């Protein structure tokens, strides 16, 4: 293989003429993290609401939640982002559609990316939340009911605190998926980490350096995420129930 390795390329001026390639990659990382964070907030809140809906005794709420999940889970993420980016502005009234299309560059891609990733991930979070609630014994809800707690109090004080603890490990994977999935947003023009690496490769032909950097950065970010989530798991572990053995007491 004839390849000119050039690790110094990171300190050369990038395509924007203002930053080095290294800074450009980190600007991309900034967009990756911002997109993941915003989409994550949407996914967590909406996913929780949908997950709860699907465990209530209200049939219409269950059906609505199920329909949402099937819709957003069964369409590829890439197609969903295209729908938000290309199709939605055309379907909206001209005034709003035109305003969306005329948004300045990062926002025109960022907003549909956040919405698309957020709604897609919400479907998956809702599955976790539903499973977490259903993993609790029926008696937990009944004990809350028998005390006189209302349905919403039961969720808030009895079911959800335990359900979230149970689903922390799968939520960790979901968070990592979300961070990685932001790379799909490069297809609608978001200049996130993968897009930055691609730009570097296209302008400098240093394909190995560019994607080595992106790979290392993704790995580091996800290692930090895993450890952050483990720390959360440890700090909310219930003595004698679930969690690392060092905090356990008696229990079952």
């Amino acid at each position, binding site marked *: 293989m004839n390849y000119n390795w050039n690790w110094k390329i990171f300190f050369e001026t990038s395509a924007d003429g203002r930053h080095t390639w290294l800074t450009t990659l980190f600007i991309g990382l900034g967009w990756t993290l911002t997109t993941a964070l915003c989409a994550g907030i949407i996914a967590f809140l909406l996913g929780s609401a949908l997950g709860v809906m699907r465990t209530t005794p209200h049939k219409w709420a269950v059906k609505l939640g199920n329909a949402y999940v099937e819709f957003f889970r069964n369409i590829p993420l890439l197609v969903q982002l295209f729908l938000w980016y290309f199709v939605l502005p055309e379907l909206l009234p001209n005034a709003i559609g035109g305003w969306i299309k005329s948004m300045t560059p990062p926002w025109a891609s960022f907003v549909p990316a956040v919405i698309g990733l957020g709604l897609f991930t919400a479907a998956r979070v809702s599955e976790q939340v539903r499973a977490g609630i259903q993993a609790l014994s029926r008696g937990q809800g009944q004990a809350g009911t028998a005390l006189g707690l209302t349905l919403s*109090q039961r969720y808030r004080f009895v079911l959800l*605190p335990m359900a979230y603890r149970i689903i922390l490990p799968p939520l960790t994977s979901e968070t990592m998926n979300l961070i990685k999935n932001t790379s799909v947003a490069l297809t609608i023009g978001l200049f996130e980490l993968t897009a930055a690496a691609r730009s570097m490769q296209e302008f400098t032909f240093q394909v190995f350096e560019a994607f080595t950097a992106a790979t290392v950065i993704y790995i580091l970010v996800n290692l930090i995420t895993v450890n952050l989530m483990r720390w959360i798991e440890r700090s909310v572990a219930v003595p004698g129930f679930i969690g690392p053995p060092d905090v356990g*007491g*008696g229990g079952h």
Partner: protein
Amino acid sequence: MPMIEIKDVSKWYGSFQVLTNCTTNVEKGEVIVVCGPSGSGKSTLIKVVNALEPFQEGNIVVDGIKVNDPKTNLPKLRARVGMVFQHFELFPHLTITQNLTLGQIKVLGRTPEEAKTRGLKYLNRVGLIEQKDKFPGQLSGGQQQRVAIARALSMDPICMLFDEPTSALDPEMINEVLDVMVGLAKEGMTMMVVTHEMGFANKVANRVIFMDRGQIVEDATKADFFGKPRSERAQQFLAKILHH
């Protein structure tokens, strides 16, 4: 007026009938033991009293309030009916003290201090005051069930329902729970207890209800039930559970 009035109650799960025309009354201060083979509907019978389980026919009136009236404020009614479950059902993420105060604060609107004082009073009564800052998972089954009783008592219930409170316990822990229940019965608490502990029934029950296949087969005073059960089914049942 009886404390609990159950009249012609029938309940179905789909096409399967779990309760058939059940009728009985529980007077204030009475202790009723409900027994019968598994699947006889005894747990269901006490779970319809505070509407944990819905029923399709008949009427239940608790302290003058009709349970199956859509206008009834069920959370308010349930708050006045204490319930103890087979598997304790303490809230694992809350400390023992928090378990005792949650309902008092959120349902009865007591201040946290007030709730804590009252909760700890009952925790002390069941002999577990030193466990107040532990979590349920750190307690033995018998201890958890005593906390569950204290949790129910903290709400100042007008009556108590027990759904097989000792069935999930190791044999050596059964008595510590039964002792608490006997104490309650002697103080005049109105109680409906689903149990196979015939010693408990013998000691404190006023009446024994025997159920089979969703029906109340026998509703007799303790003396009559143990002395001369009328139905053949109850005789067989007693013979089986007393002969070991």
